[in-house]
């Protein structure tokens, strides 16, 4: 029993510490779109090189003492006080930085998303780096060697292969400026999260996009003007000089109703419902991938569509009414990403 406790204790303590550090951090550095770096949120600590620098200074001190050599002692004192000066410079290099970033980014799985941090400075800063603090994200360190007065963008890439909503945690903005002895770091919480859409998978979309019956007029038109493909008949207008004769509504003209020309409007909304159930395959992820592809294609072609996502049991059904446009696409893809 005692041994068990002995083994348990460290994990208990570590989780306890983790919890409290996180709580402390979130209390001290709350979530916000914008952060101003100052003494409240900058942590400064010596790097490994900084520690070896201290050891080196002590070594020089011992050398000077052993040889009773004042100049070497003076050198060690100078290096020691340099340590302190560098600490202050390191801190001031990072402070007064203003960081702004949007919380949400969205994109397909396996695509690289960029979380853009807008940095505004009042003075010149050096060696500004940014990275997601979460080590499991394996995010690369993005660097600006020299920030002049003004605003700068740092783009932190993020890539995921699983769909869903991913919280990315804090961003650490850090700098080892001056001599690499100190690392000043700010763990900023922008509330970053990524909506990862399922990765599109090709499916022959003709068979889904044109599922609604064609009306007579457009049918006719399909025969006459094959090149305009999906364009639909819209209205008749009085003929204007210079218009193509090919558009003349001969039917009306023959009836003696006057010279009209036919007008078409491209992509006149065709009612299309995309549904999870109608997708081929028996894996939900595959079906979602097909849907993702279709939504993207249809939006690219400016076609209207709606989305029906239902669980197999049919308890909860999510329906998005037919619409067009990028926002609609985002809504639909987000629904796919969050589908359970």
């Amino acid at each position, binding site marked *: 029993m005692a041994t068990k406790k002995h083994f348990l204790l460290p994990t208990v303590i570590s989780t306890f510490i983790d919890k409290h550090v996180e709580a402390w951090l979130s209390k001290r550095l709350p979530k916000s779109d914008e952060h101003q770096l100052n003494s409240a949120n900058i942590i400064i600590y010596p790097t*490994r*090189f900084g520690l*070896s*620098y201290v050891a*080196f200074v002590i*070594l*020089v001190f*011992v*050398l*000077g*003492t*052993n*040889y*009773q*050599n*004042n*100049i*070497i*002692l*003076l*050198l*060690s*004192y*100078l*290096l*020691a*006080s*340099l340590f*302190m*000066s*560098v600490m*202050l*410079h390191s801190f*001031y290099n990072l402070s007064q930085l203003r960081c702004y970033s949007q919380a949400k980014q969205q994109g397909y799985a396996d695509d690289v998303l960029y979380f853009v941090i807008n940095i505004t400075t*009042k*003075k*010149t800063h*050096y*060696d500004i780096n940014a990275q997601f603090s979460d080590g499991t994200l394996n995010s*690369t360190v993005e660097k600006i*060697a*020299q920030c002049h*007065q003004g605003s700068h963008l740092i783009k932190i890439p993020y890539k995921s292969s699983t769909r869903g909503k991913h919280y990315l945690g804090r961003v650490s903005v850090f700098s*080892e*400026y*001056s*001599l*690499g002895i100190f690392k000043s770091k700010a763990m900023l919480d922008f509330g970053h999260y990524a909506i990862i859409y399922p990765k599109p998978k090709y499916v022959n979309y003709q068979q889904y996009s044109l599922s609604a019956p064609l009306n007579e007029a457009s049918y006719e038109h399909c025969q006459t003007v094959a090149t305009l493909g999906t364009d639909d008949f819209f209205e008749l207008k009085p003929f204007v000089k210079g218009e193509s004769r090919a558009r003349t509504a001969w039917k009306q003209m023959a009836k003696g109703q006057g010279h009209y020309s036919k007008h078409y409007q491209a992509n006149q909304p065709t009612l299309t419902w995309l549904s999870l159930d109608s997708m081929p395959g028996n894996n939900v992820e595959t079906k979602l991938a097909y849907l993702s592809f279709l939504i993207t294609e249809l939006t690219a072609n400016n076609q209207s569509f709606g989305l029906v996502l239902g669980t197999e049991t049919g308890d909860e059904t999510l329906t998005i009414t037919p619409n067009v446009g990028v926002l609609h696409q985002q809504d639909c893809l987000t629904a796919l990403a969050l589908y359970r």
Partner: protein
Amino acid sequence: MIFFNAKAKHKVKESTQTKRVIAFSLHRKNAWLLWLCQCLNIAVIALELSTWLLAIISVLLAWQAFLLHNNKKQASIKAVHQNHQLRKHLDNQLQNQQNKPFTTHVSSILLTVFAVLGCIVIAIKANQVGILASMVHLLCFSYVLKAFELKNRRDFYQLFLLGLFVLASALIFRQNLTSSLITLALLIINLAVLLQLFTPVRSFFTHIKVIIMLLAQSVLLAVVLFLVFPRLSPFWQVPLTQSAETGLSDRVKPGDIANLSRSSALAFRADFGQQAVPPYSQLYWRAMVLENFDGKQWTRNKLTAKNKRVLAVNSIDTSVTALSYQITVEPSFQRYLFTLAPAISDQENKTVISHDDYTVSSEKTITQAKSYQLTSYLSAPLTFALSKENRLANLYYPQGSNPKLEQLALQLQHNYPNVQARAQAVLARINTQSFSYTLQPPLLINNSLDQFFFETQAGFCVHYASAFTFIMRASGIPARLVTGYLGGEYNGTNNILGSTGQWSSQGHLSIYQYDAHAWSEIWVAGKGWLRIDPTSAVDPQRINSGWSRQLLQEQSLLNQELFSLYQLKNIAWLNTLRLQFDALDYQWTRWVIGFTRKQQTDVFKRWFGHRASWKTALILTLSLLVSVAIILFSIDFFNRPKRATVPLKKWQLWYQKALTLLANYGLEKPAAMTVTDFTQQVQAHYPRLAIAFSRLSASYNRLCYQSLSTSEQAELLLVMQQQYHDFVHLVKSDNHKAS
């Protein structure tokens, strides 16, 4: 099993990939700077390294330079070859080329073999060069080799710290002002190279500037630490330097001191404080007494040299004026010290030992500048007593070694029964015959004094002193040779204060190696040891004021140094500069190099009273706070955006005032908005003011942006003034109406 292997391989691949991400890259310029920095660091300590190691190091550095150069070439060739390919691809290639550490071509096996070989050679040579020197050899060797494996940032850091350590260890050997300043300069360069890693964009000179600023901000705390941080005694025994001995040697042949006088290096300095400096001819700085003569060379008598003298103050006549002074010797890697005999050393100072023959020596070999306090009684006689053994020793000469001189001595003994008259006769002979005083005496066969005295008749001080001492001994007078320095160069002001007749002197006496001298002492019953300088008979100027012009010229011919003293002394401003630097160097030696624990305690007592650790802590904390305040202030000062210092023109003032008036209405002009746009805005919001304001704005625009002749400008100014007044009037009346 296979599965496991595959997994392992995969892992290896992954790890190399992650490593590549953090791979260390050095900019081309930075790599060269690092190389230069290494060369300079090695140069500082080069004097302490053996020739063979220097050869190896220079080969390694040249190899590195070659690799660096080659890398650049390859990069440019690649760039030409791939010009037709995609730009991005090309960039990648180039970057890869540049990102490669510049020494990838050297395989690690070769490096290891090289390192091991080098270590073996150093270990073999360790006996020859001494422990400290071989450690320094090892340090420098590893410093140069390390540069071949800069694989990541850690290697760079290690190289940097090694470089600093090379600088620090160079300070073991030399601490004077010049080498300290050189070390400081190199420290700045080293730090600048490190800084460049973090701000590669800026120029190297900006880095130097930043580093100087950083160091300047650190100086205060460093100085306070130096003053109050307790001095500790050595933690453990360290190997001492085994540098070549400089200065006088304890065995002297006739030609020896002439060689020494080619050097214009500093031997020691004497500070007489407020007292008057004795006349030049009194400044016989005694270093060693040489009593044994074997027919060729003079050596010390081991017995008298060993005997410690317990010289009490009361043994010296109190009526004789005392002269106390401080001597600061440069490291000579020997033990003898200098004194104006007879002298008593500071009783507290146990590191200075007085001897029977009125010389003093140091307890340990002098490896760094050392100060000691002495009190001399210049006109007091040396000891009256002469023991039997001493008498015998000071009368001994190898019979028949210089037969002619012996014959002369017997003749003199017969002619001049009085001891002092006999000595005077020899001096007179030297003076009247055609003897000459020269730095380039003709070579003597077998160091024969006969040959010198009767044939060549040209020599330096040792020739005359040896011959004189020999004659004295041969004629039955106990005599000995004394070596040391004569005179010195006074650096400072030396005035007599009119009314009181007191001396006020501020400065010190610098004694250089070329001041080395040798003279004789004869023992006269009832008078003790008397100093007789035969040089005075041949070159009186040497005794009274120093080197003659002819000697200086001779020295400048013999001297291999870049600026001989003769040339320096001839150019007035250079000489002043030299003297000023010498004074600075003296202060440095005195206050920094010679700042002992005792001095630290004294300084502490004078400023803060009784020493206590809480006081030290308080002082350190205070100075830390002050430094922080200074740094904060200076950061603020340097980072403050530069404001336009040009005063506003009249029309700008009017326009600004008009804007403030409008601002009172609640319409503010954003800085980014143009004048014309703002006019439109005014039109939209306050149509009543619009006409007047747009006129004002138009004039303002013209004055600002159009090139006008002075008359036009004056005219327009008048117009604008009127427009401004109109506008102000309009605003006021408008306000009035509103109220």
